[in-house]
């Protein structure tokens, strides 16, 4: 049964000269945003703060800890800490599980049903369970992130291993290589590109689940910052939080993309 792999990488069309159009459309967008909020004031700043106020708050948030008790970087640090905790555990468990499930059909028969049932359950639904199991500290939030990472990694590893061409397996077996040897020297190298994509997709999943994790009990973190400003009539801080999440998410994805290119150098053969 073929897994639906979440295509995360966006195949860029050749570097077209349309960058200018993108910039223009962005500028127009921001201008319209400004016009309807601070310009004409048609939308009250309580519903939608203007770009100037948002960027003011964005830069002031770097050194001001009002109103939620920590600066933007402290929040980011706390969120990243939880994300990486969950990510590392998720990768450590997800990759081996994905490999074993793909390589040993019998194990797959048993592991797959439970995995498929747990897979659609979002991180946020696990929050109460995690409170009970791991309390309200760093670990329980890390576990919520772990779940989303674990699912993404296992799927991609599983699909990667399954892509190993049977002809390669036969070649290795004809040389008398054992099943394990073939796994390590044929299947895993073939799965490497898919694995790398998995790492990037999983980091994306981890970063998006952090907000859910921080709805749990938290004293810091971007999710907490957003959650706090909801009751305080500070939509500008909410938007600052969203921008921070968006930028960090893209930067993380970009970094992993670089790693992927270096690791796979010439191997990114177009099938």
């Amino acid at each position, binding site marked *: 049964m*073929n897994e*639906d792999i*979440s*295509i995360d990488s*966006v*195949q860029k*069309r050749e570097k*077209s000269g*349309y*960058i200018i*159009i*993108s910039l*223009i*459309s*962005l500028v127009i*967008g921001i201008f319209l945003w400004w016009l309807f909020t601070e310009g004409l004031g048609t939308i009250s700043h*309580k*519903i*939608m703060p203007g770009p100037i106020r948002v960027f003011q708050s964005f830069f002031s948030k770097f050194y001001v800890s009002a109103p939620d008790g920590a600066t933007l970087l402290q929040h980011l640090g706390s969120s990243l800490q939880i994300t990486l905790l969950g990510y590392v555990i998720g990768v450590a468990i997800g990759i081996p599980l994905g490999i074993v499930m793909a390589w040993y*059909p*019998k194990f797959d*028969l*048993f*592991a*797959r*049903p*439970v995995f*498929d*049932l*747990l*897979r*659609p*359950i*979002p991180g*946020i*639904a*696990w*929050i*109460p*369970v995690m409170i*009970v*199991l791991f309390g309200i500290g760093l670990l329980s939030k890390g576990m919520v992130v772990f779940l989303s990472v674990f699912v993404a990694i296992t799927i991609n590893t599983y699909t990667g291993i*399954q892509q190993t061409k049977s002809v390669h397996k036969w070649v290795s077996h004809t040389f008398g290589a054992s099943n394990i040897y073939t796994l390590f020297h044929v299947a895993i190298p073939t799965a490497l590109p898919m694995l790398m994509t998995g790492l990037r997709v999983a980091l*994306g999943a981890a970063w*998006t689940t952090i*907000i*859910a994790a921080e*709805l749990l009990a938290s004293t810091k973190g971007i*999710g907490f910052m*957003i959650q706090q400003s*909801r009751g305080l009539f500070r*939509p500008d801080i909410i*938007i600052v*939080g*969203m921008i921070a*999440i*968006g930028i960090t*998410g*893209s930067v993380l*994805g970009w970094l992993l993309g670089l790693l992927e290119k270096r690791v796979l150098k010439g191997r990114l053969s177009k099938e």
Partner: protein
Amino acid sequence: MNKTFWESKWAKPISAFISIFGFLLIWHIGVNSSSLGELMPGPIDVLSRFVGSFSVNIGQYTILGHALWSLSRVAIAYSVASFAGVICGLAMGRYPKFEAAFRPYFEIIRPIPPIAWIPMAILWFGLGELTKYFLIFLAAFSNVTLNAYTGAISVDPELIGAARMLGASDNQIFRTITIPASVPHIFAGMQISLSSSWATVVAAEMVRSSEGIGWMIVSGMEINNMQQILAGIVAIGLIGYGLATFMRFLERKLLVWNERGA
């Protein structure tokens, strides 16, 4: 168990039953033997609560009513998102100028998870259904657009060459070649979006609701009723699994011409 058991058509269902039963057993032992017991209900209580909730109301509906509510929210938002996503994705593929104009906003929206949009969605759309549709729409839209776009720009140039040789104009090529060729991509995108939409329904129903599976979990959190929470989680898992299987079935039926290789 002779050799052929593994190949026989019974292998899958039986092993599925064994593995799920094993999981419940581990859960049962874990709860009863450790201090976890006071706070965490065992599988028997949860499953009985889950089955019970088909007849007994939780809040205003039975679990079926909640499931229908959640499904209707997902169905409406998902179909609008798929429709918009396909149009946007193909348009981005077809008209590079549109892509250049639309891409900055798409790249900004994509990394921000639906949950982070809740506060602004409430300010813009209030506390009612529209906010929930908006959140689920966000979850589904980016994947469908991405896949429609990838489909549109990765059409085999030979096919386009062949169509051009047969006298097709650019528009005809787009309509009769690019769109059908990207249907497999679009469908893959719709499958991924359906699972992400279903996962977002919990977050969407955290926004002031009085019905839905997500509400069941959220209100369970408020009144500390672990059984209700776990029953909700079981429901989300089962329905999520069912939706994924349904989409795969649909694909086999609809894309009969597409040999979906590994």
